[in-house]
């Protein structure tokens, strides 16, 4: 049986709030609380602090504090740093949707919506709510980590293939959110974007040598360097596990992958990253092939994400083989 969620819906249109109330009854009686503005929503969240909300439905276009500002404010609250937030938008403009994802949105639904669509989106986020989680944690890259997972402590180990969350880095979102984002691109014909991935070379060596805490720090620093290197371009990025960072770019920017890789590696070389014993870590990345999303539809969009992931992994393997061959040639020489 599916767990019921406690949901806060925020929209300045009372008709939307009434519709959502009816929809919630129809899809199985989630507990719904409503607010008509961002300011009211923050008050309601505070009032419900003892039994926090498990999901947010937020209108993007509202007077005063809009939905993008609201999701940013919600993310700043410790209790809701990872609570699923579905944006409600009547707009197809990509810039609003991008901003919402960058601010911390998990998914979005386009208005006017249908009950079946809303049910599907709620079903997707429901599995991210702790109460709906199986007790055994899955560790493979294809399975997103729970949204509500606690922040790691020094003692907590993470799996190499785990798509861990990297907070507080510009344009870096959870892998689940990126998957939702690219899926929505197909639905809204927002074509023209490109997907590619970076792979951190010798990630297994770093993983074996470092504690979970240090490994997470290495990934966060690498993410920050990649994000900073791409500043000035519109993109969203996530960590997909196994040293892979997947990037979705805005239409119009087709990066030169070699130059981008060199720029990131130069920035990494200039960044001082240390483990807990003070030894300097020197991560380097390779890039896979860029994949244009034009004409991709349905499941092929997610396949493109997987292809970009695989391409970067293969590039990392090739790089190490090439380096191995160089040593062999020198030894024989």
């Amino acid at each position, binding site marked *: 049986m599916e767990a019921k969620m406690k949901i806060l819906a925020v929209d300045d*249109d*009372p*008709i*939307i709030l*009434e*519709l959502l*109330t*009816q*929809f919630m*009854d*129809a899809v199985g009686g989630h507990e719904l609380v409503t607010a008509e503005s961002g300011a009211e929503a923050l008050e309601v969240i505070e009032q419900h602090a003892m039994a926090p909300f498990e999901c947010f439905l937020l209108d993007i*276009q509202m*007077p005063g504090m809009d939905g993008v500002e609201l999701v940013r404010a919600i993310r700043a609250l410790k209790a809701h740093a990872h609570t699923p937030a579905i944006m*409600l938008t*009547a707009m197809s403009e990509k810039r609003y949707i991008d901003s919402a994802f960058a601010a911390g949105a998990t998914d979005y639904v386009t*208005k*006017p*919506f*249908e*009950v079946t669509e809303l049910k599907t989106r709620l079903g997707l986020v429901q599995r991210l709510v702790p109460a709906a989680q199986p007790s055994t944690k899955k560790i493979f890259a294809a399975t997103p980590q729970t949204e509500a997972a606690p922040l790691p402590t020094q003692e907590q180990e993470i799996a190499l293939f785990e798509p861990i969350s990297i907070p507080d880095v510009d344009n870096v979102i959870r892998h689940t959110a990126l998957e939702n984002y690219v899926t929505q691109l197909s639905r809204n014909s927002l074509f023209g974007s490109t997907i590619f991935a970076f792979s951190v070379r010798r990630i297994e060596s770093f993983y074996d040598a470092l504690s979970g805490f240090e490994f997470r720090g290495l990934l966060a620093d690498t993410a920050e360097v990649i994000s900073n290197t791409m500043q000035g371009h519109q993109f969203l990025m996530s960590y997909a596990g196994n040293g892979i960072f997947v990037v979705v770019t805005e239409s119009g920017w087709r990066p030169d992958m070699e130059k981008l890789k060199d720029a990131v590696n130069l920035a990494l070389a200039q960044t001082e990253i240390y483990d807990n014993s003070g030894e300097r870590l020197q991560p380097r990345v390779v890039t896979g092939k860029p994949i244009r999303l034009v004409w991709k539809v349905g499941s092929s969009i997610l396949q493109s994400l997987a292809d970009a992931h695989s391409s970067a992994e293969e590039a990392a393997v090739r790089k190490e083989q090439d380096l191995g061959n160089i040593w062999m040639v020198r030894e024989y020489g």
Partner: protein
Amino acid sequence: MEGVLAMPGLERVREKFLGLLAERRSAIALHTLAALDAHSPAETEAELLEAQNILHKIAGTAGSLGFDTLGNEARASEEAIIATLQNFSSANLLPLIEQLDVFVGMCGDLLTVKSDRTG
């Protein structure tokens, strides 16, 4: 009626939507006329933005309540306002006013049908 949805309680939401539509229709008409009579582009823009916000709300819910045609026309009118404001001139204001007039008329027709049914 288009796209009839079978959901308990939805009829009450539809009634409320139509009740609000009468107010929103009047407001759109007033803002449109004020935009036409404005003394400066800034005034015109402010009035059109008010009308756009109302159209935005109608477009966001009409389709979910079975009023697909009204919702599509509201969306088209909203987008027409955005396009006009991006490239504003008195020459492209008149076609927009005509489009909004058609939308206001469409709302009126829908409300008349409702009134006939209930009256």
